[in-house]
């Protein structure tokens, strides 16, 4: 089909403008992170000193963020994949309600969820001061993304019928789950996993209220550095964060390009 020339021009202009708007600041940040003195400009020379300084100050937050993300991933996978299967299997009203409920922690601002967690679980002994508290928050926030991604994968594969086919061939429920359902939902699970890790690494709204000085994650450190560090240090820290995100995003897009179906919820870091 031919497109009207006006349409194409408007679209191209808007697209390039938006791309510049979105990527320009990222480039600025990357530049600032390796510039000796950003106030003076690039003429002051390039340096990796800021990144070294970030490493000195914040290395622990980076490791902790990876730890939290992996723990979150493990939990969301273990409870999310079965939940997605049950939702796929019972496409009725009740499932819609359940899914709607599971999505609430995403729909409702993270601040509210964090407050609720603090008032109800904050006084439980070791929990408040432990990383587990943050992991709980992250699981609440990322679980719907895992469930949606896996469900999309399952629906695409027409899994209910596959499950029935395996049943008529004599496979027990357990066998079917591991032989048929999990492999068929594989691309959904991988999408979900990358999404969960990406979101967890970037989660701020919940974590900011849930963390203690000993359980700072990377975004918390970022916020600290934005508030009180030199622009160059903050930029360098941001650069480190972007580098951590990059493989995850590349992976996500690679999968999205290969499979035609996407989960409805998409990705969307806490804002």
């Amino acid at each position, binding site marked *: *089909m031919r497109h009207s020339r*006006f*349409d*194409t021009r408007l679209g191209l202009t*808007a*697209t390039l403008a*938006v*791309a510049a708007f*979105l*990527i320009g*600041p*990222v480039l*600025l940040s990357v530049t600032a992170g390796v510039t000796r003195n*950003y106030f003076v400009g690039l003429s002051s020379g390039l340096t990796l000193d800021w990144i070294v300084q970030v490493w000195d100050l914040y290395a622990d937050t980076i490791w902790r963020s990876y730890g939290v993300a992996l723990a979150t991933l493990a939990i969301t996978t273990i*409870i999310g994949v*079965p*939940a997605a299967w*049950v*939702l796929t299997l*019972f496409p009725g009203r009740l499932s819609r309600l*359940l899914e*709607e409920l*599971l999505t*609430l922690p995403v729909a*409702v*601002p*993270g*601040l*509210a*969820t964090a*407050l*609720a967690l603090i*008032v*109800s*679980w904050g006084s439980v002994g070791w929990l408040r001061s432990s990383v587990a508290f943050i992991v709980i928050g992250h*699981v*609440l926030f990322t*679980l719907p993304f895992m469930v949606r991604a896996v469900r999309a994968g399952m629906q695409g594969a027409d899994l209910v019928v596959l499950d029935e086919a395996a049943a008529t061939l004599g496979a027990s*429920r357990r066998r079917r789950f591991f032989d048929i359902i999990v492999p068929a939902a594989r691309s959904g699970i991988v999408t979900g996993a990358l999404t969960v890790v990406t979101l967890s690494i970037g*989660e*701020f*709204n919940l974590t*900011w*209220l849930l963390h203690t000085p000993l359980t700072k994650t990377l*975004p918390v450190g*970022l916020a600290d550095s*934005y*508030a009180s560090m030199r*622009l160059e240090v*903050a930029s360098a820290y*941001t650069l480190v964060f972007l580098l951590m*995100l990059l493989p995850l*995003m590349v992976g996500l*897009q690679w999968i999205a390009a290969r499979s035609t179906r996407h989960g409805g919820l*998409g*990705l*969307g*870091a*806490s*804002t």
Partner: protein
Amino acid sequence: MGRRRAWLVIAAPAVVLFLAFWLLPMAKLAGIGAATPQGMDASAYWLVVTQPRYWQSLINTVALSLGATLATLVIALPVSRFLARHPDFPGRRVLMSLLLFPLAFPGVVVGFLVILATGRQGVLNTLSKALSGDPMVLAYGMAGLFIGYLYFLLPRTIGVLMTAVEGIDKHWLEAAQTLGANPWRRFVDIELPALTGALTAAGAMCFATAMGAFGTVFTLGTRIDVLPITIYDEFTNYANLPVAAALSVVLGLATWAVLYVANSLAARTARGN
């Protein structure tokens, strides 16, 4: 059917987690909102609706979120249409990656990027000073917030709208064309109605996201109080738990309600008219 029921057990962990760590805590939070804050004489819910400080913040939030949502939709629509309609555009993959990469940025980072772009040392200020001699610093005002909101809303919306545009049967447009409709009529008569559902859903998602945005405002540290910042201030600066709880409940209910209504509407348009 009966035999399927046995599968239900495996969803139990998810349900338990949700009940124990979200629903019960939320209920408790809602209860705390009914308490009377120290030094006040009414329940926090009452304060929240009567004190100008709080409802002003609510109005700010709603106005900003609405404005950002509308602007996002208007900007994202041509972008999504272009990307969806030109699958063979050279560099499309790269362009898409660039447009979607910021999806993963938390609000704090977005705030920081806004400072870099439009802050005191931002390119905008440098350019403006070079061109007109006047400084131009948007980051710390309403404009900065608005830019930040656009920044995180655009990537979310473009993806959703693109899928919707791709979902429009191109034969509808061709049918209209053979019936004599010019591009504008095709857009208005066929395309927009077909996108209504997606626009509603995307708009609601934008609105809800904007309402709950915290990191961006937090980093920008503007003087414009939006609800999440008010909640945060009440809680962390004044230890005013009842008001923080009440505001959280109000904010949560408001965003959820908007999402719910819009999604029902979108589902209805998808089904029928």
